[in-house]
């Protein structure tokens, strides 16, 4: 039987649930934006959403395609310049949760969005870091959303664009970084968290109907599982309804604009 929701939907819902009403969240485009706004429209109406374009406490009715759509500014408490956003707000240490995704991730939640192959002779030139290098170290903690595949979850990154736990315990501290780093990775198949002892990403819950074999087949390193491995609670009808309505509004808006 087909599931009542897609893998992307449960990934987004799992990410939304991780957000708290009093979080100040630095939002990236795509799945993070969907998750943050789903949280705002469900259990976390008071959440403060900040986009790197400078919009503070924004409440978009439709999901932005870029991090600077007009909708974000029109519904924001205020909008500051980009230098101020990075200086006073991100570096200022006022962001409790930063959302990141990437082309590739390793077992210590370091991310690559720069190149595949060598930097000087890249096989694939990716967009680059953008805000990620400083988001990864200046936010209180980091949530990551990525769909699993052996091309994305790799044994070794060709390039480290943003820091997770480096080479393991103590790496962040050795660099003078005082923030927590990645505390949760929401994928289309499972949720992973860093092991308290080793910092290695460990599966803490499998989405309904997903087997360990299925998850391992999409991961480039030998996965470890939490002792109390759980099953991710499926999206509720309310969560799915709000998310799909949001996506539908967005599709109508973006589809009708040329």
């Amino acid at each position: 039987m087909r599931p009542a929701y897609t893998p992307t939907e449960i990934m987004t819902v799992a990410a939304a649930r991780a957000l708290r009403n009093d979080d100040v969240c630095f939002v990236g485009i795509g799945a993070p934006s969907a998750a943050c706004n789903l949280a705002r429209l469900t259990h976390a109406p008071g959440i403060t959403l900040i986009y790197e374009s400078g919009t503070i406490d924004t409440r978009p009715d439709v999901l932005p395609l870029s991090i600077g759509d007009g909708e974000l500014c029109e519904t924001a408490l205020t909008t500051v310049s980009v230098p101020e956003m990075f200086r006073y707000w991100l570096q200022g240490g006022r962001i409790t949760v930063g959302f990141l995704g990437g082309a590739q991730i390793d077992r210590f939640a370091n991310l690559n969005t720069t190149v595949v192959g060598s930097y000087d002779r890249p096989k694939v030139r990716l967009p680059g870091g953008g805000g990620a290098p400083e988001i990864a170290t200046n936010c209180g903690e980091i949530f990551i959303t990525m769909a699993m595949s052996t091309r994305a979850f790799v044994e070794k990154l060709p390039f480290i664009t943003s820091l997770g736990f480096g080479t393991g315990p103590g790496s962040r501290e050795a660099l003078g970084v005082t923030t927590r780093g990645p505390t949760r990775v929401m994928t289309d198949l499972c949720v992973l968290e860093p092991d308290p002892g080793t910092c290695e990403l460990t599966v803490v819950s499998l989405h309904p109907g997903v087997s360990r074999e299925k998850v391992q087949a999409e991961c480039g390193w030998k996965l470890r599982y939490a002792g109390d491995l759980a099953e991710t609670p499926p999206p509720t009808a309310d969560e799915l309804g709000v998310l799909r309505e949001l996506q539908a509004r967005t599709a109508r808006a973006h589809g009708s604009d040329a």
Partner: protein
Amino acid sequence: MAAFLPLADAIAANIGDGDSLAMEGFTHLIPFAAAHELIRQGRKRLTLYRMTPDLIYDQLIGMGAAEKLVFSWGGNPGVGSLHRMRDAVENGWPAPLALEEHSHAAMANAYEAGAANLPFAIFRGYKGVDLPKVNPRIRSVTCPYTGEVLATVPAIRPDVTVIHALRADRAGNVLLEGILGVQKEAVLAAKRSIVTVEEVVDDFGPRSPNAVILPAWTVTAIAEVPGGAYPSYAHGYYRRANAFYKDWDAIARDRDGFLAWMKENVLLKRPADFAGYRNRRAA
């Protein structure tokens, strides 16, 4: 003191082959009309600065105007890759493109330092990442009070900065509103500046006492180009043409299709044509 000029004259008078050029606009107010005029005038060997080289630089790079790109995120926001930029970097077509890559925080601080007439900026960044290994411009200083080592970036001081703004008044003062990006800093950091505007008004009228305004004496040339930011947007004038950003992925994917599109939509057009674009339905 700002001179009111036709866009073609403003570009011809202020931008030459080999110049360093910042065309800014953080998703909002991207100066597409100015970029198209630059392409029509056939400028070459430009060093291009921009935090987010999206479609506007994909077009300049694909037409062979650039020899170097200084940037922090090169993609089509929410859509995917910049195929022309990738083709230049991965295959050297139509010409090789040198890259100087930073983070957003670094670029924003570099423009800020340029506006403040400082030679460099300090910030807390690049911890535990590989970019400093491949970019020798990323350096550090030690805090003389705490001993903390902070990252540094050289100030951005372009020969010319080009931006699109909402309005200019008859005196040549320029008003920015909405998502501000780094445009004010980029203009103040540059030797010369060109500003395209949606409209020229007699007076800005009632406004916040802290409105974001570039005084006339900080701007070199102003050109009135309604719709000049299309397919990006102008707060209060027209919305972002998100569908076009999605369409661009197919347009730019192969070289012939790209060249055909550029010929029809850029080489054979004029700045005045942008006035029509902004009337299209947009979200």
